[in-house]
Structures are given as C-alpha cells and as structure tokens.
C-alpha cells in the first residue's frame, strides 16, 4: 500500500493551493516482490507505486507545483492503528530531523519533505498532510469492510 498526501500550488494565475491525496494498492504479484518488513519507500513511491484506488483532491491534479508531501508505504494488510502509531512516532522525530526525513517504524515506512519556505512550520504542515492520509486510509478500509459485509464474507 502506498498513500501520499501532497500540498500543491496550481500554476495558474490564481495559484490555488490545496492538499491532494492518493491511495494505491499493490496487487499480489507486485506485493510478492517487495520486502514488506522493511519496505523501500524510494522504490515503491517513485517507481512502483501500485494501482490507484482512491483519491481526495482539493486542486485538479496534473502540472501543479508540489510544496510538501507525506508518503506512507506498508503492506496492504496493515491496519489503521499501526499506521497511526507510526505516524505519531514519526512526528516526534520530525521536529529534530533535517528534510527530507525518512523513517521505517514497525514495518511502516514514512517520508516527509517540504520546500524551505514551509520548513519553519513543518510540524503543522506534517499534521495537515497526516490528517489527509488518515482520512483516505479510514475511508478506504471502511468501504472495504462494507463491501466484505455486503458480500456476506
């Protein structure tokens, strides 16, 4: 699973800003090729992101400048509480770390980066992106649970 939330600024004159988030899942073949105990966030996010299954966008995606991003990579089967705990722990270490900050916590790999203008408020920025990641993940799992329930599984 690869979830990313990114603050973007449109290149139009209006320079709209907002947070766009995407949830990708890895099919079984792709998943088998990865070591999910210690996932490589660089390779998964930048080369093997998986299949896009859900998104939540404030600004129409495509061609916008990315001002900050939060990437989360973990196995598709990881539950929300483990991801949330990893994100909390990541936040604690983010305050002291240079950007980009990358850490794997309990089999959840997290990466955060922001342009320098946003660095002084990096924790606030991280929290905004984290909220969007959590929202997308909960929504997807909720939808998945309903699907399973309706199919009688």
């Amino acid at each position, binding site marked *: 699973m690869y979830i*990313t939330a*990114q603050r*973007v600024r449109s290149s139009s004159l209006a320079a709209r800003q907002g947070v*766009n988030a*995407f949830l*990708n899942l890895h099919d079984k073949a792709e998943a088998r090729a990865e070591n999910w105990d210690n996932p490589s966030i660089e390779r998964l*996010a*930048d*080369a*093997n*992101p*998986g*299949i*896009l*299954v*859900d*998104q939540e966008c404030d600004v*129409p*995606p*495509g*061609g*916008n*400048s*990315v*001002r*900050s*991003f939060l990437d989360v990579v973990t196995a598709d089967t990881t539950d929300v509480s483990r991801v949330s705990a990893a994100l909390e722990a990541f936040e604690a270490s983010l305050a002291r770390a240079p950007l980009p900050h990358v850490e794997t916590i309990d089999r959840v790999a997290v990466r955060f*980066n*922001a*342009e*320098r*203008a946003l660095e*002084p408020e990096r924790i606030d920025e991280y929290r905004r992106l984290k909220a969007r990641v959590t929202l997308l993940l909960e929504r997807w799992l909720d939808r998945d649970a309903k699907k399973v329930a309706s199919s009688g599984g």
Partner: protein
Amino acid sequence: MGLFTCRNCIHNPAQGLTFGPGPGFCLQWGALLKQPDRTTCKYLHRKDLPHFLVREAQVEHEAEFAANRALADVETHDDVPASAFDDRALPRAERIDPVTRAVANYYTLAAAPTVPLTRRSRLITLFAGSRDARRASAHACLVRGMGDPQSRHEWFRRILGLIEEVDIEFVVSPSDLIGSGEASKADVQWEIANIRLAAVQEYGWHLGREELKFPLNSELEALAADQKWDGFMAKLGELKGEWADQIWASPAADALHSRLPLKPAPLRSDPEPRFEGLGLRDRWVQKGASSPPREQN
C-alpha cells in the same frame, strides 16, 4: 555652449555641457533625448547655477518655448516627438549607456503614481556615494529636482546626503567626455562641482539661509578661480560640516522635518527568504493505473 539645452537641465541628470555623450533621458517627459544638445523645453531647470540666480533668463526661456507643449528644437522651435525608453526596441546604434539606462530605470520605478514619496526619495540614494562622474551628477540633480512642498522632509534627508559627498572625488573616464578634445577631464570636474554646489544653494534659498545661498567664502572662490582642484575639494571637506550644521540648526528646517522618523525596515526572522521549491510537479493519474504521482520539474 547650450546653456538652455537639455544638456544643462537637471531633468537630464546624467549628462552635462562637457560630459555624457550620446542620447540622454528626460525625467520631466520620461523620454529619450536623442540629441540633448539640440533640444529644450519650457520646463528647463538649469544645472549650472541655482534657480534664484538665473530666474530672469529662465522666465525668458519659458516664454520663448511657451507655445511648444513638450520637447522642442532649441534653434528652430519645432516640436520634437518624444520617444519612450524601451531598451529592447532600440537599434544597436541607439543603445543608451549604462548610466543613462540607470536614470531611465529610476524613472520607470519612481514615476508610477502609486509609488509613495518616501520610496521615490529612497530610490535617489541608489545614486549616492558614487565615484563615477556621471552618477555623481545624477545624484546631485535628482536631489535638486525633488524639491516640492510635499517631499520637503525627504528632501532634507537627501540634501544632507548630498552635502556629505560634496567633497568626494569622482572618476572621469575618457568615454564620459563629449566631442573630440572639446572638453577635458578638468572641465567635467568643475562642472560637476558646480552642479553639487547649485543644489546646496537652491536648498539654502528655500530655507532662507544666506550662508547656504552663497556658500563660497573668499578662500574657496580664490581656489575655484585659480582652478586649484585639490585645494578646492579639501576646502569643501572643511566646510561641509558647517553647512550640515546650518541646515540642522535652521528653524525653517525644523518645521520641514518635524515628522516622525520613518519606520526601520523589519528584521528577518529567517536567515534569508527562501523561495526554492522541491522541484517537483504532480501528475494526473487515472484510477486503476499505476504511475508515480510526482515527477521532476
């Protein structure tokens, strides 16, 4: 000598009767002066002497060119069409030199009606303290040209800055001289010294201070008459402190600059404004597709 041409007008600040070849720039009309020694206008403000000493001649000149709306040929009185400064549009042969370009850019920055007086005044300081002859002239003329009632408190600041540099030597390069052998380096030096002094004299006239209206004492006059440049500049260095003191002590000046001091520029809380981004753009990805959401710019 064209005492009543654009060459000798403070609105064309980077040229003089002996220096600044090629086209000039008129701050009065925002126009390029392709032939500054052939053009004039009714708003001419002579550089070489303070206005109160040449008032009668200037009134005559105004009357002579009253029928011309703007720039005119000094001999034929024909109107001269004004051309705006656009560096991109100028043919190579007509390119203006860097100092004139700086004046034109000053005009571009300062002439907009939305530019506050304080900012306009501070732009003048970009010409201050220069060791270049033409920039020294430009600074003196710009300070002199800003004397309107609304900006008197700013004028006060700028005139003190000009007095501070009145004895600063400047470099006259051969390319500054006009004609071929008509003017010498010494001519340029004395002309610019006069331009600086005329600015001080005009300010003295506005303040009503005789010491500033006629700042040359007998010793300084003798040095000027004998063309003793080094001694003249050294004497100016001795006198400039007295002139500044007179301006500070003037009751009229008190009234002019009794406004609150300007707010200082804010300190930065960050080491430097940083605008560089991550160098990434997002991508449009269709649901069901597999593609990284970002790419390098």
